């Protein structure tokens, strides 16, 4: 009886029943908050950013629901292809991409300007999850296995870092490393590479773009150039700090309303939220993210296939990285590196990637009993 249920496909209604509704509600809630925040960045009117964000959220959310009905086997089957296609897009972007504000990250797909590096954040997890799905624990630490995993990881990072886009490459690296770590790689390799990283740091700095060096210097002391490179972080801290316990009120964030906040639609959307809704609002937002991460990890825990388990764990951790890197950045705990806050930040590619990630997670939930050969 039980055996049967392992192999027979669940019916449509069973699938519907197996949806993780708490996760779904949290995503919707986050979507609603993001739309209201976007409305606030437009100065209390429904202008370009609000409209675009609403449509992107709705389209990709519905797409996510439909994609959730795909069997987890499908993702497993096409994992490498997915990775290769995204990698191809990355190469394409490096060659023929659209240039904007000093970097070349986007490719024009006519209905959307796609940023393949965002998709790579998901693709790297999918790809490594499939790779380690088959590899037995005692083979994980062999040179051959490690070498292939590193190639899979380093290849996209190379393309992203030369765009140049430090923030996204770090997030891709972290997402990939988490999966490699979960797969059981010996901790000593992490220690070795960490030491190697420290030693190579001075050389790495030589390769950084001037604006990236400036950002690091600015992070160490924002006041060294308060009207130049330090401006963003100083203004961001002022906005967050002036929010206080309960915030200045919806649509009343003076820092964003009077345009002291740079990039308030994208990387600094949390600053605007924290200014208008204060410490309490920020805690609620953080809580929603924590619930989402918790649900994703829980789905990983109940998944029977290694692929689903690795993906959910990887993706849950990735969301954690996105959120913490973004928040630490706007709160002045990390240097400014471009990294959006999932769902909250304006940007189609990021939204698309995030929703694909949730679709795979949801598929893993629906098919959590599914074994993959």
């Amino acid at each position: 009886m039980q055996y049967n249920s392992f192999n027979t496909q669940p019916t449509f209604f069973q699938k519907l029943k197996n949806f993780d509704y708490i996760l779904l509600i949290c995503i919707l809630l986050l979507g609603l908050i993001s739309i209201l925040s976007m409305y606030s960045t437009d100065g209390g009117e429904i202008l370009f950013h609000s409209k675009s964000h609403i449509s992107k959220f709705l389209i990709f959310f519905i797409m996510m629901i439909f994609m959730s009905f795909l069997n987890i086997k499908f993702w497993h089957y096409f994992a490498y292809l997915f990775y290769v296609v995204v990698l191809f897009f990355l190469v394409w972007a490096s060659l023929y991409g659209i240039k904007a504000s000093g970097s070349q990250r986007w490719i024009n797909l006519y209905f959307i300007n796609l940023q393949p590096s965002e998709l790579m954040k998901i693709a790297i997890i999918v790809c490594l999850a499939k790779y380690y799905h088959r590899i037995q624990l005692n083979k994980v630490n062999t040179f051959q296995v490690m070498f292939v995993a590193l190639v899979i990881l380093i290849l996209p990072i190379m393309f992203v870092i030369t765009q140049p886009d430090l923030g996204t490459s770090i997030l891709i690296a972290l997402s990939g490393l988490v999966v490699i770590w979960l797969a059981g790689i010996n901790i000593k390799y992490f220690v070795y590479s960490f030491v190697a990283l420290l030693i190579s740091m001075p050389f790495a700095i030589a390769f950084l773009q001037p604006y990236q060096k400036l950002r690091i210097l600015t992070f160490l002391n924002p006041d060294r150039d308060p009207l130049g490179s330090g401006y963003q972080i100083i203004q961001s801290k002022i906005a967050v700090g002036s929010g206080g316990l309960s915030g200045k009120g919806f649509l009343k964030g003076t820092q964003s309303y009077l345009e002291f906040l740079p990039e308030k639609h994208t990387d600094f959307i949390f600053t605007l939220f924290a200014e208008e809704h204060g410490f309490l609002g920020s805690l609620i937002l953080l809580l929603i993210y924590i619930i989402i991460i918790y649900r994703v990890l829980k789905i990983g825990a109940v998944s029977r296939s290694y692929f689903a388990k690795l993906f959910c764990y990887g993706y849950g951790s990735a969301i954690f990285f996105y959120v913490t890197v973004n928040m630490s950045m706007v709160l002045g705990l990390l240097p400014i590196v471009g990294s959006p806050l999932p769902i909250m930040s304006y940007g189609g590619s990021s939204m698309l990637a995030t929703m694909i990630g949730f679709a795979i997670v949801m598929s893993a939930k629906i098919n959590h009993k599914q074994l993959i050969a």
Partner: protein
Amino acid sequence: MLGENFGVKKAQTINRRMFIIGAAKFVVFAGIIARLFSLQITENKKYLTLSDKNRLREWRLPPIRGKFLDYFGNVIADNLNVYQLHVIPEEVEDFKYLMVRLKNILSISDNDFTKIIKKKNNQKPWETIIISKNLTWEQFTKINYFLHDLIGAKPVLSVSRNYPFNENYTHVLGYVSEASEKDILNNETIKITHVPGLKVGKTGLEKTFEKELIGTNGIQRYEVNAYGKRIRQLDHTDGVNGKTIQLTIDTEIQKLCNELLKDMAGSISVMDIYTGEIVAMQSSPSFDANLFLFGINQDDWQLIRNDPLKPLVNKTLSGLYSPGSTIKPIVALSALENGIIDENFKVNCTGKIEMYGQTYHCWKKKGHGIVDLKSAMKQSCDTYFYEIARKLGVDRLKKTSIKFGLGEKVLNETFGNEKKGLIPDTKWKKNNLGKGWVIGETLITGIGQGYIQTTPLQLCLMTAQLANGGFKIYPKIIVEENSKTSENIKFLMNKNLDVKNNGLQETRELLGFTNKERHERLFENSKNMKLVREAMFASTNEVRGTSYSSRIEDPKYQFAGKTGTSQVKRITEADRELDLKTFEIPYNERDHALYIAFGPYKNPRYALSIVIEHGGSGSSTAAPIAKKLFKLIIDRHELREKKSKQNDLET
């Protein structure tokens, strides 16, 4: 079996490692929450202040300058609404195009045009450029008509100083003009209040009373965005207007003075002999103070600057003249007071006297014959005054002169340009010229020539103090608050009427009614005062008096005076032989004409002094002006009295 074992182990490994990451996540989230807490709760105040500093800007508005009123409350310096054209280069898309358009519409001269362009290049793009400080109504409507095409041009309603009586008050009030760097540095009040384009007093009372007049700034608080653009006004605090200052001057008399001095270089001062109030004070030629408000144009400025009649000099206060015969009442008084002469002392005038080989001439070649004090004063006999001056000595003469207000500033520090003049004595000459005094110098000092120099206002004060019976008064040009002038004067006048001329002795008590200490007695014997006054009466109202032709017989207007003709160069024997008429002498070598007078004689109330530079003689040029002036002064008296009472009631 083996595989499954491995499989279980693999799942365990993954789960265990996930658990480690999960624990790390909690730590990181806790860190972020701690950071949020520290920014939003602990340091909230600091960041709230910084945020307000970001968004709030204060704009100081130009203060509204206090007005000047004349004695009757007529506005003599006012603030007018003017239309200006401002441009903020930052807000202009195409500055060149805008300027060319404006140049055509306003017909700006090439010179001004390049000045504006220069100014634009020298200042920050968000600072306002004032294209025109005073648009005519026609220009203003024209600008508004083309405004759609003039993006960035801003017609603005602004406030500007206005002097409705043009040249009549220029030397008294001075004028305002844009504050220079020096003005700002030297005056703390201006520094605090300064806004771009602020106008401050440059001369006269406008300068002296800057602190009282300037007022305080209104303040507008705006919310601004990151680019400094004003988003909305938050609140507005009105400034306090500058103090209104009331002068003692009567505009009607002031205007007549200006008319009487037309085309001449000279001055008229009129003073109330009891209160010291200056009723009129005009220096001629004058110029329109309104010319300076928006920066005077070069042509007008050169015209004023190069005028040989020196319109820029306030001759009432800074003009120094030998008093000539107008000093004679003081010389006579000094001689009487010191017991050198009495009313019967006589001198035989033969037209000249010789002393130590020098000849000293009387103005009348043939001589006056035997003269006593009264006839000597009446006919202004120089020989008589040579004689009494010689007996008196210059040091005693100086004492009396100083007592009556010569050689000292009349209005203290009220005017920056007032001069002290000079009353010489033996000590002065020793200290300043290093030579001993010679008797001949005493002689010419006795007829108001030589080293002695006085301002017209000093002569006016001297006359007033002779007229009021010899009591010190304190001249003023500003109506003081809380002074019960009219009550005291009314009381005083009534007393004076009862006792007629002899009653002048009483004046001291009357003036001292309010403040005995202040109205110090300037004489020893009131009989001497009376003698001098009678001699002055004779000079104007008796046959052969030097100003007899300018007399008024109606006792209501009747006045007493003394003419003066002061030489500007030494008269040689050759000159004396030629005996040229005034118009035959070059302008700059002609004598100054002076006249001092007080009236009405029976019950004196006003004193005046008139100086006409290079006017010929006092009797021909200066005295006739007094005749015209006294009529108006006396006619205006009743009104002035009424107003004085009203002023007292108000305070």
